């Protein structure tokens, strides 16, 4: 894999994408942000992403369905689940269905960058998760 990591970020809360997109761009990722799961699914069918980051609890289509679609379409794509309602059963279900990782909200942009770096490593395209500018705040992102 050459070039930038292609990431799709899906969360129905606009603040999440707004906050995380620049954080991932700083470590050299191309990030497409979606709030509507249907639009995200359309995009997933058009383009193969390296990493998909998706919220779990969303109206109409939940993150686990997104996960299934992604894995079916592109088994090499790493799917990272994020949720404010983390529970063991959901975490296990997500991992069983092929999720690469699972993070509970709130988390810091740095937490997500570390997971993205791990996914990039697994894809054979390592990146440095610590190349963010020092002035970036490290307090929890508004990701509830």
């Amino acid at each position, binding site marked *: 894999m050459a070039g930038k990591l292609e990431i799709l970020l899906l969360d129905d809360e606009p603040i999440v994408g707004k906050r995380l997109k620049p954080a991932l761009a700083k470590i050299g990722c191309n990030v497409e942000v979606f709030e509507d799961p249907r639009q995200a699914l359309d995009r997933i069918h058009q383009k193969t992403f390296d990493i998909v980051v998706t919220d779990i609890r969303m109206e109409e289509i939940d993150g686990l369905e997104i996960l299934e679609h992604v894995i079916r379409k592109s088994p090499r794509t790493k799917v990272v689940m994020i949720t404010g309602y983390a529970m063991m059963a959901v975490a296990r279900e997500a*991992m*069983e269905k092929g999720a690469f990782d699972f993070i509970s909200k709130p988390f810091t942009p740095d937490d997500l960058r570390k*997971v993205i770096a791990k996914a990039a490593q697994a894809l054979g395209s390592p990146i440095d998760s610590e190349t963010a500018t020092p002035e970036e705040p490290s307090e929890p992102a508004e990701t509830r």
Partner: protein
Amino acid sequence: MPVVTLSSDSHPLCREIAVRTATALGYDCVDREILKAVAERHGVPETDLHKALEESPSPFGISSKNHARYLAYIEEAALAVLLKDNVVCRGLAAHLYVRGISHVLKIRILADPQKLAGEISSGRTPSFEKASALLKRRERFRRRWSLAAYRVDETDPSVYDMVISLTRIDPDEAVKTIVETTGYRKFKPMTYSLKCLKDKALAGRVRVALMDRFPDVTVQADGSSVVVQTKALEREKQKRTEAIKKLAGEFPEVAAVEVQILPDIFRKAAESFR
């Protein structure tokens, strides 16, 4: 790789399966051998730590306060070990306090009742009726112990991810099954489950630090934030809050401490009768 906790109604059998599973997985096997170091660290008799794992508090045995304290010491040490990963843990009641963590595979091994009855009666083979009564009594005792210590019934199969009865499956097969199960994706460690375990370990350490002065404390951690709950009289509130914040704040990982003081209604009632 997931962490494995094993518990059983038979210690020798549990030890055997744990050692064999750890060997097959290339893991460390951790059991009550760590209690020696725990006893030395906290300056308590090792035998009392063993007793706390076996006996309920009673007026003729370990007091409730010491029982809770000893179990907190054991929990703190066991959680530190589990954080290292690649571990099979047995004999430390970890299945009762490491709950809700997806990469911890909790296994219960049930011994053959006839063999177990013989084990309990020091090698003699009791009659069927006697054996059955003996095992029922023992099960009641363990249920009472686990409920008193952790509010969990350790004889309830729903506590575990897998229950293996050695009446029908031989130990080789049991080890093979456990090893295979550790390979399931659903038990893979993830950022969330590792964080939950870290939070539990930090909460356990803070609780131990607070317990000598505030034996009833409960502690929850979420990242670098810690919530401490304790009971106190109204007039003690401020001092107690300050003391807890100071003690908990001494941990470098702790950035924020919230203290929740609940009214101590029994002491309040006792004072009002004076």
